């Protein structure tokens, strides 16, 4: 009985191997480069377009892109596959998974790869917050790919109806405007709370106002970093958001609706959301809309915002041929032409100065002024330890805790100070765990 069973497994295997052989034979003469990515829908189509452009541009390599679910699912798939040597050659991983990837022992730093394969990439040409995030000890670890930053989207018609030309550049000024919008009943809600509010309204807020988020330069200077955001302006920010929620000025989008829809449908007059929302807003908003840099505290020492999005990692354990292909593809992605096309098609930030200057010279930003806001926000002031970015081990875990604790403020279970104290305490335990596990890295 047992042996027939084993036979049937092997039989199944053989049959499927045959099937696979049949479908894979067409591109046998090219070196296959597997790429797992995490963005779907329209953005996924743009990724496939990028791949097909690369495949057409040369005849040695064939990049095969596979959508592996959202960022978390893609990373989990990578972990599972790596443990049994089934990993792809390229992985798209979100900024929150940066440390996990960096210390995984599963990657080849991108500068090493490019140098070895004979490509000269000018890493200084990457715009500062992007380079600042991905360069570790002077060397870039991953290739910046889809980088974004949150900007303030607003309904220009609604603002005009309430008697304003544009949103104020401070939170204090914006508060008055949002309450005026509500009192004059211009829109049902003045602002929508995005799903990733911890990224925009907490982390970016902290960077822009030059508050420290954690010790050791937000984790850049060592794994023994500790969160300190319960002692900075972040507490006031959470209290402000809570007040807005209670007063019905700020609406929590929650599950079941894309927060940006609350803006494009005209329900909410403003939203602070990723610059990558451009293609959606351009297509869907049936009113006069615009965008502005994120507000700051009155009198703050204003700095750059930080980036979100994801980067491409070269994964270890692949043949020399495949690595050469990965380098060729990375080189293709980093070209100003590709960057320009990608940025225009998606709304993500052009990550190199060359691409940015090229778009500027063409007058692209004259026709699309809001597309430049992200760059403007990312290059405000000289980056400080507080604004360069965040480098925390298991950042996903501490983020989940932060969200959970702030939700306890929305429900009224905790005061902002209590919630942030608890969040810092639980977050630090995670940092310590990570430090213990990766001591010496």
């Amino acid at each position, binding site marked *: 009985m047992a042996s027939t069973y084993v036979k049937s497994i092997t039989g*199944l295997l053989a049959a499927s191997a045959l099937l696979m052989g049949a479908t894979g034979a067409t591109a046998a003469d090219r070196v296959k480069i597997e790429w797992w990515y995490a963005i779907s829908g329209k953005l996924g189509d743009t990724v496939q377009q990028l791949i097909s452009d690369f495949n057409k541009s040369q005849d040695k390599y064939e990049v095969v892109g596979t959508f592996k679910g959202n960022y978390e699912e893609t990373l989990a798939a990578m972990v599972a596959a790596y443990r049994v040597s089934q990993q792809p050659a390229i992985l798209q991983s979100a900024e929150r998974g940066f440390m996990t990837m960096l210390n995984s022992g599963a990657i080849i730093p991108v500068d090493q790869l490019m140098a070895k394969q004979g490509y000269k990439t000018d890493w200084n040409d990457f715009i500062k917050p992007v380079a600042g995030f991905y360069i570790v000890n002077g060397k870039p670890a991953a290739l910046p790919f889809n980088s974004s930053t949150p900007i303030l989207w607003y309904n220009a018609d609604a603002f005009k109806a309430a008697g304003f030309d544009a949103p104020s550049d401070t939170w204090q000024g914006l508060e008055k405007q949002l309450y005026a919008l509500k009192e004059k009943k211009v829109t049902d809600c003045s602002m929508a709370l995005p799903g990733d509010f911890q990224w925009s309204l907490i982390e970016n807020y902290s960077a822009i106002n030059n508050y420290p988020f954690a010790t050791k330069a937000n984790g850049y200077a060592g794994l023994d970093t500790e969160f300190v955001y319960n002692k900075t302006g972040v507490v006031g920010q959470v209290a402000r958001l809570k007040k807005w929620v209670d007063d019905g000025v700020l609406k929590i989008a929650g599950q079941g609706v894309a927060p940006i829809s609350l803006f494009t449908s005209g329900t909410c007059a403003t939203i602070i959301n990723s610059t990558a929302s451009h293609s959606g807003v351009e297509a869907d908003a049936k009113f006069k809309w615009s965008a502005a840099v994120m507000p700051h505290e009155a009198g703050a020492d204003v700095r750059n915002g930080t980036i979100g999005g994801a980067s491409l990692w070269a994964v270890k354990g692949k043949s020399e041929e495949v690595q050469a292909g990965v380098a060729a593809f990375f080189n293709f992605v980093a070209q100003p032409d590709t960057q320009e096309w990608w940025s225009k098609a998606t709304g993500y930030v052009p990550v190199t100065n060359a691409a940015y200057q090229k778009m500027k010279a063409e007058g692209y930003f004259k026709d699309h002024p809001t597309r430049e806001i992200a760059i403007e926000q990312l290059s405000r002031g000289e980056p400080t330890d507080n604004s360069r970015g965040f480098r925390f081990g298991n950042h996903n875990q501490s983020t989940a805790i932060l969200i959970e604790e702030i939700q306890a403020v929305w429900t009224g279970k905790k005061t902002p100070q209590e919630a942030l104290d608890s969040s810092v305490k639980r977050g630090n335990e995670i940092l310590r765990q990570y430090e213990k596990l990766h001591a010496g890295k």
Partner: protein
Amino acid sequence: MVERHTGLSIFCHVVLLIGAAVVCMPLYFAFVAGSLTVGEVQQVPFPLVPGGHFVENTVLAWNEGQFSRLYVNSLIVTVGIVVGKLAVSLIAGFAVTYFRFPFRMTAFWLIFVSLMLPVEVRIIPTYEAVADAGGPLRSLFDAIGLTGFVADTTGYQLDAALQWNMINSYGGLILPLIASASATFLFRQFFLTVPDELCEAAKLDGAGPLKFFWDVLLPLSRANIAALSIILFLYGWNQYLWPLLFTTEKAMSTAMIGLKDLIPVADAQPAWNIAMAASFFVMAPPALVILLMQRWFTKGLVDSSK
């Protein structure tokens, strides 16, 4: 004939109508959303009557997701799961209820405990197990020295023969999902209710266990097999996480992954209309199975077989 009660009849119809309305409500809204344009689907308040773009959205979704190929994979995997699990659990259920043998209850509890940790929760080690299904055997044979013995005596490389990588194969998609006890448990419960004299009669006729199983038990189990087929078909068809993690070849992807690919994510345009339209043709095969299978359990089966 059992007499009829008008009051009861009305009550039952009312219950069923309300029940049907409630369970179908999400379906109606999916249909409405699927019939709108991407602009309309984001409207507040949400429209309560369907728009005119359902066919258009469906066609767009179908082509976008290359569903023709995904469909074939999904069907193979799902039918594999249904048939595999039914076969495996029918005989296992038969064994634990109709045979006296040592460790019978141990076997039952071993099977039963597999209900206690779904595949999604132990997904990373399961992936390892499937990518290298021969691994445990290799280490076992190495440990007891069988590998070396076989290589010395026959020159046969046992290690090499035990490299079973099931990544991107139907076997790898199907087998881990069969590994659960729900169906065995159901058949055990059902077999225990089967009148004992049926088995006695079969024994008197000189029928062996397998003949009894095939001629008597299997026909009696028809309603349960039908009900379970529906459940298993849906279970297999709606699998998402396992195939997603497990398949790297587009050629092995399933319809559910294609559907999930259409569901908008944070930075993209929220094209819910396309995803909702797609959900209808993705649910068509399981819906068909429900409509066909439900006809199977219409009469008192124990009666009909006597």
